């Protein structure tokens, strides 16, 4: 790990003020410290924001405001989250380990970096780590990589489970920075790689996430978070799906679907969601939506299996949501 200056901020304004070239904010540190050990991140200054008053979870406009420093565990085990946003709870608890969730923050979860092997290996080229150096994952070892929205410069995926649920819930990210405060709709927070894969998000330099706001609509009756991975716990998603439905009898009134493990950001296809609306919640209709989504898939040399896996996960996830039988967190059999 490189040497760095350490600053402990007491307010958001102090944290923003302390920011400069080569600086990084640090909260839970579960990703940043790891990246520093691999020399992927070499900050000249760490700004410790853990003492900022952003740990709360508060009622707001019929929804909840999650403080950026609320730990993943605190959010997942909050009674209001469990009752009103169980999709979010399940997504958080599907990720990482208990130890990591106890340390990791809400804001940090949004800002974690890809687990692409090449990004993590400072001995290889990587356009995300060193812009312009190339992408050995294209044509290389890319079993875990993107099938949607990738570019010729980067095929990395976003690793978060929590963010997949936040995308489906249409959360809003509140940020504060040198130019003041602003709100970013969740769909506009993470980027596709395009020709600038070094930028994961639309945050500007020095901006800090202060909260994540959950709208009132939580899909608490009809939801699931279904995660498919190489082992049953403590592994990143190959494909995951957050599904939320509102039903009127058997008819779909609202449908939300977000996929994890398949793109540079939580992947949504609003046209496919619209296909479901006004129609019966049947397997055939779920199949049609899934077919619409995977029609855009562009697999890499080693991850063609993800296309069919995603198609089936979408159908199964929608069935689980419609039936009100979300995927269990401890019994991993997929019903």
């Amino acid at each position: 790990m490189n040497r760095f200056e350490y600053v402990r901020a007491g307010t958001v304004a102090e944290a923003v003020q302390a920011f400069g070239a080569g600086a990084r904010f640090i909260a839970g540190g579960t990703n940043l410290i790891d990246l520093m050990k691999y020399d992927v991140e070499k900050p000249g200054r760490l700004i410790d924001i853990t003492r900022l008053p952003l740990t709360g979870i508060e009622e707001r406009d019929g929804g909840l405001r999650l403080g950026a420093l609320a730990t993943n565990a605190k959010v997942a085990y909050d009674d209001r989250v469990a009752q009103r946003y169980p999709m979010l709870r399940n997504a958080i608890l599907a990720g990482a380990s208990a130890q990591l969730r106890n340390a990791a923050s809400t804001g940090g979860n949004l800002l974690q970096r890809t687990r692409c092997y090449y990004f993590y290996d400072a001995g290889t080229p990587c356009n995300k780590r060193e812009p312009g150096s190339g992408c050995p994952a294209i044509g290389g070892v890319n079993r875990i990589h993107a099938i949607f929205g990738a570019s010729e410069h980067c095929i990395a995926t976003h690793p978060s489970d929590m963010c997949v649920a936040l995308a489906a819930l249409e959360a809003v990210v509140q940020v504060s920075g040198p130019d003041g405060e602003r709100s970013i709709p969740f769909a506009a927070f993470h980027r596709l790689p395009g020709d600038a894969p070094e930028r994961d998000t639309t945050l500007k330099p020095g901006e800090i996430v202060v909260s994540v706001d959950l709208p009132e609509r939580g899909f608490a009756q009809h939801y699931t978070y279904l995660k498919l991975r190489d082992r049953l716990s403590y592994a990143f998603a190959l494909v995951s799906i957050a599904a939320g439905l509102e039903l009127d009898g058997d008819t779909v009134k609202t449908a939300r679907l977000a996929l994890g493990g398949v793109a540079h950001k939580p992947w949504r296809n609003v046209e496919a969601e619209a296909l479901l609306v006004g129609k019966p919640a049947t397997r055939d209709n779920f199949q049609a939506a899934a077919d619409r989504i995977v029609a855009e898939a562009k697999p890499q040399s080693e991850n063609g299996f993800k296309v069919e896996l995603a198609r089936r996960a979408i159908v199964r996830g929608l069935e689980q949501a419609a039936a009100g039988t979300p995927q269990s967190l401890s019994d991993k059999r997929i019903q």
Partner: protein
Amino acid sequence: MLLEQSPPVSADTPIPITLTINGQRRELQVAPWTTLLDLLRERLDLTGTKKGCDHGQCGACTVLVDGTRVNACLALAVMKDGAEITTVEGLAGLGERKGSNALHPIQEAFIEHDAFQCGYCTPGQLCSSVGLMNEGHAKSRDEIREAMSGNLCRCGAYTNIVDAIEDVMHGGAR
């Protein structure tokens, strides 16, 4: 307010912190890049806490920070200023048996249930077990397995580890 001084601490200046480790208050000077794990092992000779992967993947470094289990390898000591740290060396001193030399019930249960072979992961497994019970969310066997997935055991003692935790959780340990 900013810590101590502004502009910030230069990279070569150790930073004073206070930690309460296994009930003992310690005033320390640490470089900011010192992890909690390295501080415990290299500076304080508390080598019960193990360095397995050093990347938060194996759980061998699990300790309790203010009663909550975390990976000590992914924590900077300077950021834990003011915290109470419990390592495997301090488990026996927790709870009702405080002051005696008796083992913590989970330690006795690990022995009773043969919940280890080589022992390298055991300090992390023990601290993680105590953290799990402090959290109070895992009840069933499946839930315990899920909540312990951050602690790898390459000897494969998992079944007996879950037995030991269930035993203590349900009040069966001596």
